[in-house]
């Protein structure tokens, strides 16, 4: 049974728009434009180049649409800050090494309390790594990466459809909380073609009014947006304000899915592409009679700590599967607080294992733990 506020909302808003077959990167770009994004700033890096390519074409055909291929990732994230200060819906996209460069701006967006959507179609690392799909940017995305006490909302889609839906959600969340939102995909999701239904386009005039934006001090007192707060007392209060916001997000914006978890004796925890593979593996072992389910965090921050903790009252055996050397597994361990045994299986470097491979790991663990 799925915990499904997100899916429920999605199905309600379904229109009769026909499905289109699209590449994941194009899906993100099209969904962004439909969500009211009129400003895109980026810098080429594989495997996400189809996003800026699509945006350059799409935004040039819309009144007020702005696309700039910046001189660097650093410049592009600061252009994002400028357009966000002006009140626009704005996006940038990149992959691991480029996101590293954007961290300065992401910290500033957080401190300045500005909305923006940042897409990471991640690849193998560290360093230049490679251009194959990997999930090794989990820490970077969920732990901030930049300086200072801040959090970014991180959404991890696992399909073309979710790329579309979560991109819409990302813009709404960014505006609602005045905070940057990261969409953490990978090279697989960005390159894969799948049938997708888009939500209807939001007219720009229906977007929320931003009474804090910099538009020129006409008919109102002048405004400034800044993150420099020299007085320690004031800076502490600013940090408390951010913390209260993050606590509200952690309470209200959790997104996760449970699959075949009701009677499970063992749970696999995975996100994004890995969760897609894990689902196939779970279906496979279920056919063999193994009582195994899947928990898929969709919001990586906020992380569904309580949901996992609640499951650990019934289930004592967990397998965390990631396409990295073990990053989300730390959050799973934190969530369980020792209330369950965790086995980690990871394939880093751009290797994408098959459901069969993962099902063998599950089966082996299942019998080792004498669950069947």
């Amino acid at each position, binding site marked *: 049974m799925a915990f499904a506020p997100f899916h429920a909302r999605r199905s309600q808003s379904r229109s009769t728009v026909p499905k289109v077959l699209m590449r994941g990167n194009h899906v993100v770009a099209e969904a962004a434009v439909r969500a009211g994004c*009129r*400003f895109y*700033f980026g810098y080429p890096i594989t495997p996400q180049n189809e996003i800026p390519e699509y945006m350059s074409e799409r935004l040039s055909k819309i009144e007020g649409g*702005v696309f*700039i291929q*910046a*001189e*660097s990732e*650093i*410049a*592009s994230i*600061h*252009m*994002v*800050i*400028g*357009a*966000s*200060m*002006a*009140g*626009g819906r*704005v996006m940038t996209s990149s992959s691991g090494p480029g996101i590293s460069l954007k961290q*300065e*701006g992401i910290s*500033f967006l957080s401190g*300045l309390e500005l909305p923006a959507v940042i897409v990471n179609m991640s690849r193998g690392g560290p360093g230049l790594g490679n251009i194959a799909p990997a999930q090794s940017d989990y820490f970077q995305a969920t732990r901030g990466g930049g300086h200072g006490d801040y959090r970014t909302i991180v959404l991890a889609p696992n399909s073309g459809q979710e790329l579309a839906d979560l991109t819409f959600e990302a813009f709404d969340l960014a505006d609602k909380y005045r905070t940057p939102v990261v969409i953490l995909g990978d090279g697989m999701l960005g390159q894969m073609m799948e049938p997708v239904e888009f939500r209807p386009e939001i007219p720009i005039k229906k977007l929320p009014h931003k009474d804090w934006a*910099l*538009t*020129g*001090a*006409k*008919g109102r007192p*002048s*405004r*400034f*947006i*800044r*993150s*420099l707060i020299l007085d320690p007392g004031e800076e502490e209060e600013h940090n408390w304000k951010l913390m209260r916001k993050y606590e509200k997000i952690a309470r209200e914006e959790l997104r996760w899915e449970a699959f075949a978890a009701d009677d499970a004796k063992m749970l696999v925890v995975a996100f994004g592409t890995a969760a897609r593979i894990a689902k196939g593996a779970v279906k496979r072992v279920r056919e063999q009679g193994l009582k195994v389910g899947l928990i898929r965090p969709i919001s990586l921050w906020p992380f569904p700590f309580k949901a996992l903790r609640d499951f650990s009252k019934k289930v004592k055996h967990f397998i965390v599967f990631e396409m990295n050397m073990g990053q989300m597994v730390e959050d799973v361990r934190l969530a369980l607080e020792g209330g369950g045994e965790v086995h980690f299986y990871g394939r880093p470097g751009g290797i994408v294992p098959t459901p069969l491979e993962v099902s063998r790991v599950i089966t082996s663990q299942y019998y080792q733990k004498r669950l069947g």
Partner: protein
Amino acid sequence: MKKVFTRPKSLKSAPFHYCPGCGHSLLHRIIGEVIDEMGLQERIIGVPPAGCAVLAYNYFDIDMGEASHGRAAALATGLKRALPDRIVFTYQGDGDIAAIGTAETIHAAARGENITTIFVNNGVYGMTGGQMAPTSILGQNTTTSPGGRKEKRDGFPINLSEMLAIAKGSAYVERTAVNSPSNILKTKRAIAKAFQVQIKGAGFSLVEVLSPCPTNWKMSPVEACKWIDEVMTASFPLGVLKDFTGDKKDVH
């Protein structure tokens, strides 16, 4: 009684935190006067830098959005592209614009962004305590060029405005100073012209202002003003470096 001299409307009633003899206070006032005279207060947005002028939003009574160190030209690009009918200017020091923000600045100029940059060159990192700047001249003593800047050890100062004048997208580049009444008037005219260039949509405009920093230069304010004339201008000559606005008489 008729007031003949008062604070510009676009400056708030707040005492400047700048050191005695610092050029920033003068330059803030000059910009405030230009904004008033051109009637821009309701449609101008300023981008202060990281550096001594980071608190500029405490002084200007206009919309302002703070940039991180060196990124003002990129931030201003985003603002201006989103609001093309507003006037957007950055206010940056030499370290901000000519070291850490070189790429952002050169590319904003190359794209011909319709923004104006006020580049305050005092040849030191003032806020952090007087370290060597990209524009510290050869022989200049700073806390990180002991014994004076030496080309073998520290490299040469960078003439960013000359480089920006080469960029095809820049429309107007002038170097002035705020060390004498006549130079102050020239600076005011240059800033007004830069804003006009932006209003016309002619491209990137920049006014570099040589500005005294008596505290870090370890001089009296009077000596600092003299040092600009006698020493600094030899490396950074004053004048119009580029004028593609059709106003031919200014071209060297």
